[in-house]
């Protein structure tokens, strides 16, 4: 009975199911099959054995990863960088969006918005080239400027302590336009009657921004930030790799989980440990995104991911 019902449904949706097949196969192959490869995290990988034939080694890979101190370093860096990016980027974007809306003529708004969105369009490789232009010891613009002021040049590519600031500024630069447009859209949708009422009550523009615009942005800001917090343990590989590369001198302050996993796989060839670190990241990521989604759902269930 049930079987023939299913068969009838398949016949009924035959064409829709056929249309769905390429996508199902795609995600099966590139997303679900690799999930089975997680077994590698518990194995001593060798080329002859491959993923499924290599011998098990229990939790050795994880022990290696955690005992080396790498786990703590890369987890801390990934979390702290993302936290700093979330706070700085959102604050700057909200500020820029409010000013664009309140204090810019249509012409000026169009030009500034267009220019601010530009960095979003270029690849991280190009950002790496820009960084090289700015920070290079011998020819870099920063050192040229310092030299003109009679100051000592900075050895930026060999000094780990400069990098948190640099990466936060670069992240703000690349994301400014994108976020500003999102917040500008949110401001534009605020009911204009509220502004009119405030004006009648004699509020000045600053009071109006503080009492109406900013509170009305809270929902959007909270949702965007919670969703970003859900991804707090996913590092932006493109950014870190193109800014820092394989420069070991900077790892103490710049190595994130993603760059660590990549390096363990490609340069030191520690397949098992790399898989363990990747699995650790996936679990951590899954837990935080579930928590973030739970928080979003509590706050505004319509905006929850699921």
């Amino acid at each position: 009975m049930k079987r023939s019902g299913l068969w009838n449904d398949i016949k009924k949706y035959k064409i829709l199911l056929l249309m769905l097949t390429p996508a199902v196969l795609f995600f099966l192959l590139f997303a679900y099959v690799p999930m089975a490869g997680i077994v590698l995290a518990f194995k001593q990988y060798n080329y002859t054995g491959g993923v499924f034939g290599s011998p098990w080694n229990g939790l050795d890979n994880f022990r290696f990863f955690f005992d080396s101190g790498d786990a703590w370093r890369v987890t801390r860096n990934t979390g702290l960088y993302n936290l700093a990016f979330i706070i700085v980027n959102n604050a700057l974007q909200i500020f820029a969006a409010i000013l664009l809306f309140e204090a810019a003529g249509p012409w000026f708004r169009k030009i500034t918005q267009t220019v601010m969105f530009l960095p979003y369009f270029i690849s991280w490789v190009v950002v790496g080239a820009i960084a090289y232009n700015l920070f290079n010891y011998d020819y870099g613009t920063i050192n040229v400027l310092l030299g003109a002021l009679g100051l000592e040049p900075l050895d930026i590519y060999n000094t780990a302590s400069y990098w948190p600031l640099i990466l936060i500024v670069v992240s703000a630069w690349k994301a400014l336009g994108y976020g500003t447009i999102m917040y500008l859209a949110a401001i534009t949708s605020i009911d204009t009657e509220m502004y009119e009422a405030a004006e009648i009550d004699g509020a000045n523009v600053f009071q109006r921004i503080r009492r109406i615009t900013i509170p009305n942005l809270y929902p959007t800001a909270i949702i965007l930030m919670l969703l970003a917090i859900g991804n707090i343990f996913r590092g932006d590989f493109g950014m870190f790799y193109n800014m820092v590369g394989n420069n070991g001198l900077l790892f103490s302050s710049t190595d994130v989980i993603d760059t660590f996993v990549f390096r363990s796989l490609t340069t030191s060839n520690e397949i098992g440990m790399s898989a363990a670190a990747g699995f650790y990241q996936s679990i951590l990521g899954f837990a935080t995104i579930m928590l973030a989604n739970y928080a979003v759902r509590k706050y505004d269930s319509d905006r929850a991911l699921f």
Partner: protein
Amino acid sequence: MKLIVPKLTPTQSSVGKKRMATDRLLLHLLGYTVLTVLTVFCLFPFILVISSSLTEESSIIRDGFQLIPTSFSLEAYAILFKYPQEMLKAYGITITVTLLGTLFGLFLTSMTAYVLSRKDFKWRNRFSFFFFFTTLFSGGLVPWYLLIVNYLQLKDTLLVLILPMLMNVFYIIVMKSFMSSIPEAIIESTKIDGANDFQIYLQFVLPLSKPALATIGLFIALGYWNDWYNALLFISNSDLMPLQYYLYRLLGNMDGMRKAMMAAGAVMSSDIPTESLKMAMTIVATGPIMIAYPFIQRYFVQGLTIGAVKG
């Protein structure tokens, strides 16, 4: 509002206006200043790279990169275009990958989104979750890498530059929410005409989805154009290097570039303007995006605001 204003006495009104004027002035002053600073902050690096690419090499070696070239020179571009084989090859790969990837990616994304947008499709929520779950959890880099290299044997193929980025769950969701807004009456009327589901998608839904197709298509194309990651992982054959990866290699390793140029045209190694050439290549690799940017920008803005509504 308009009804209330005339009720104000003249004195009240003029006092109010005056105060409004000062705080507005202040806000405008703040706004124009801060936004100008931010705009310069965003534009400055581009100008720096452009002028560095136009500076004579000896001047860079002596004084470093300058915002305004002290001695203007086109030598970096001249040498790039004098021995363009490598660069043109990289351009060819990137254009091929971008075109094929965008075409197939857009087709598959929209077809998948259409099925998921059909409210009468019994398993739409189950399939939606099947796709969505992949954004929550993954096997990580290593199993994915080994799958592509050892099992699918895609290393050093054109396909490996296209396939991994072909579909993206976020684009499917955005496309689906757009298609859900198409009135069902239109679809119902075509069913009576005897069109099957695929024909409905192709002949009716796709033409109605043009704005979403343009936006998502441009997002996909930008992703392919700017991709260097798949090449970093999977490409070692220099005939298959896309533009961004070619630039990446050149920034890190000028020797390879020198050798290629000497092989191509037998120039002296010392004749190659290393520093300005890096900057010129950066401009050449970004050029098409910069040129297209003013025209395509609004589609991206559209896409962001569709995405923002969905959260």
